[in-house]
């Protein structure tokens, strides 16, 4: 907000949005081109699918984080919440032997509930989002271990379960294109989130809150309710991520999840969403997530030594965002 007057560069939200898309795309494309040239194995259907599959979980988490970040908040609990939801699914399906749909709905509701809690703590108790979600992160982490008895819960008795992310509806129809369902779900969630952000009141308030919460409050809007709603929706999305990862591993790994919030938030910011709130796009986030997994995959394909992988990743993340900024300025 502060730097506006001085930077005539920044212009209307739609335009910025459009830019970000273009730019982020260009960064992504650059990476893809480089890797394709560097290794014949990169541009294989198999590998592309592997990349998409690898993006699905972090992508979904990043979308959840996007909603929260646009309100000017932050959600550190996405990772452990994902795990918590996976564990809940495990309890419902494996411990209690309930049918698959119950597990799916249960996991998502668990996410919604936990999101509600974060939302209430933030909106009603006025605890800063960073602290509230940091606390939730730890609480959920502990609960996952407690509930699961600190060991993985396997879904072997629920045959259909692995299909959630590993099966391929598309593949069933178009055998040459065995896109895993996990990827479809990612795109589904993305479309949904984009729709909510762009076309619904919730979305509009999400941006408004991030832009100037007090002004919204003084417009007679029930700020608290909408804020809570955003965190709840984000929570539900983490529930979906929980199902994806559990289905992918055919198990709920209770210790998983911490540290994942960083990747998610990174994807959001690389995607051009500002941590100060008020602006951001789901598409940008998707691309941010893809950049991250393309990088990881590509460097592995080139079998770059692991310690160098981190160095390169760090550098490229900075460069990608810098390129983005340059283009915007040169307008």
């Amino acid at each position, binding site marked *: *907000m502060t730097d*506006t*007057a001085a930077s*005539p560069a920044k212009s209307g939200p739609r335009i910025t949005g459009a830019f970000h898309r273009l730019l982020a795309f260009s960064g992504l494309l650059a990476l893809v081109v480089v890797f394709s040239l560097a290794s014949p194995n990169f541009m294989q259907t198999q590998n592309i699918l592997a990349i998409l599959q690898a993006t699905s979980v972090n992508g979904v988490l990043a979308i959840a984080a996007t909603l929260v970040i646009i309100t000017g908040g932050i959600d550190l609990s996405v990772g452990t919440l994902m795990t918590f939801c996976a564990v809940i699914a495990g309890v419902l399906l494996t411990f209690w032997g309930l049918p698959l749909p119950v597990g799916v709905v249960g996991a998502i509701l668990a996410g919604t509930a936990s999101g509600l809690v974060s939302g209430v703590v933030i909106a009603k108790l006025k605890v800063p989002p960073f602290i509230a979600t940091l606390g939730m992160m730890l609480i959920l982490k502990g609960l996952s271990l407690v509930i699961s008895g600190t060991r993985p819960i396997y879904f072997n008795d629920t045959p259909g379960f692995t299909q959630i992310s590993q099966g391929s509806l598309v593949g069933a129809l178009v055998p040459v294109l065995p896109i895993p369902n996990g990827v479809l779900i990612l795109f589904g969630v993305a479309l949904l989130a984009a729709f909510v952000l762009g076309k*619904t009141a919730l979305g*509009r308030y999400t941006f408004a809150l991030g832009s100037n919460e007090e*002004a919204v409050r*003084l417009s007679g809007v029930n700020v608290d309710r909408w804020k809570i709603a955003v965190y709840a929706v984000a929570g539900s999305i983490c529930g979906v991520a929980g199902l994806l990862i559990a289905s992918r591993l055919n198990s709920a790994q209770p210790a998983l999840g911490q540290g994942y919030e960083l990747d998610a938030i990174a994807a959001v910011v690389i995607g051009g969403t500002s941590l100060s*709130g*008020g602006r951001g796009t789901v598409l940008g986030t998707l691309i941010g997530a893809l950049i991250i997994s393309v990088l990881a995959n590509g460097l592995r394909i080139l079998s770059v030594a692991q310690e160098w992988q981190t160095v390169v990743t760090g550098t490229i993340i900075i460069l990608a965002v810098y390129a983005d900024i340059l283009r915007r300025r040169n307008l």
Partner: protein
Amino acid sequence: MTDAPLVEMIDIDKAFPGVRALSQARFELRAGEVHALMGENGAGKSTLMKILSGVYTRDAGIVRLSGQPVEIGSPREAQDLGIGIIHQELALMRDLTAAQNIFIGREPRRLFMLDEVALNRDAQAIFDSMNLKLDPQVRVETLTIARQQMVEIAKALSYRSRVLVMDEPTAALNDAEIAELFAIINRLKAEGVGIVYISHKMDEIKRISDRVTVMRDGEYVGTVPAADTPIETIISMMVGRTLTNEALIIPNTSAAPVALEVRNLNRGRDIRDVSFSLRKGEILGFAGLMGAGRTEVARVIFGADPRESGEIWVNGRRVGISSPRDAVRAGIGYLSEDRKHFGLATGLDVRNNIALASLERFTGPGGLLDDGAMRVTALDYIRKLAIKTPSDTQEARLLSGGNQQKVVVAKWLLRDCDILIFDEPTRGIDVGAKAEIYKLLTALAGEGKAIIVISSELPEVLRLSHRIAVMCEGRLTGFLPGGASQEEIMHLATMREAAMEVRHAG
């Protein structure tokens, strides 16, 4: 030094994405003169001055300082060249104290340490020279805009520049401080400082300025001597037509039902036992000095701040208002005096800012928004209030100050409340648009809406109010009938701790 003018700006062009802010703009400033820069909202005044003070770089044109062509690349360079500016939008560090704000970048040091004592002493000295009672150590954030504006002025003075640009310095001030400011300006003038004075308050132009330069749509219209040019001429130069300023007609609302009644409102030292009632179709003006408590009263009625005691009745029903939402539900709307912090969602575009208070109206089943309808409505208000913006999807923060204010006004007009509280509604709005807004308010009253107008501009209060409430130090010191004299108002406004006096209000 030569008798070349202090500042010459010739054929300045400046374009922003989607906007041609300046084209062939021209301006000249002599040493020891006060040169008023006039123009409608969005005419390009601030942009021109931001170019002079190194905030923006011009696309084309020449800038000369005492005859020497100069490139002013940054605010720092401007300062070094002796150019100081008071920006229209307050640019203060809210977490810092007044003194720290004033001397930011030029703190007195002892060894490698800051000398807070000297800092506060120097700040105090400046305040004293302005006859301003303000604690240098108070955090700016806790000050009302009026006082923040005074801090900005003090800061600008502290630079001792030879060119001082004042972009609507009095927008937030009222007569008392304006008088002080003018005294200061005259002193600087005597010292040979050249002063650029931007304001939408016509009366000030005559009082303070030597010459007037008028701009329209980013272009130079002309420069005239202030003394022997009638205001009407200047206005018509600005708006390209002559405005008819029809007089105030006070309707008899004594029969109309009471829309809003406030009983024994209390809040600390800011509000002390305030009671008044407001009838449908009535416009009640609130006058008072800075810090009198008008804004505070409005905020409390609106539920923005908690009240300690007191009752609020709307249409004869007592309403428990504990949040702005309750107030809006009860049909009360409040336009804040501080648009930047409490009015505008600067990151959102014009369309959404206008719709912000009425989103549910555009929300269909499933929370679906009807952007089409929002667009139509927004464009309608953009036209009605002559909001200067490339499109209804322009980000609000990119509008000129006055146009931002119009957007906030539009938001509340759209909300269509029965009771509207406007706090400094025409702050930074040009004469033409002011007239429009006055018409609108009068029309709204005509439709039976109850309206409170808080204004530090007495002429505005007098122009609009059917009845005038005057506050002093948190107390209602009296009511006056519409068309009362400025003297009567000032008398009540300065009536400290005296007995409440009510002249029968017509």
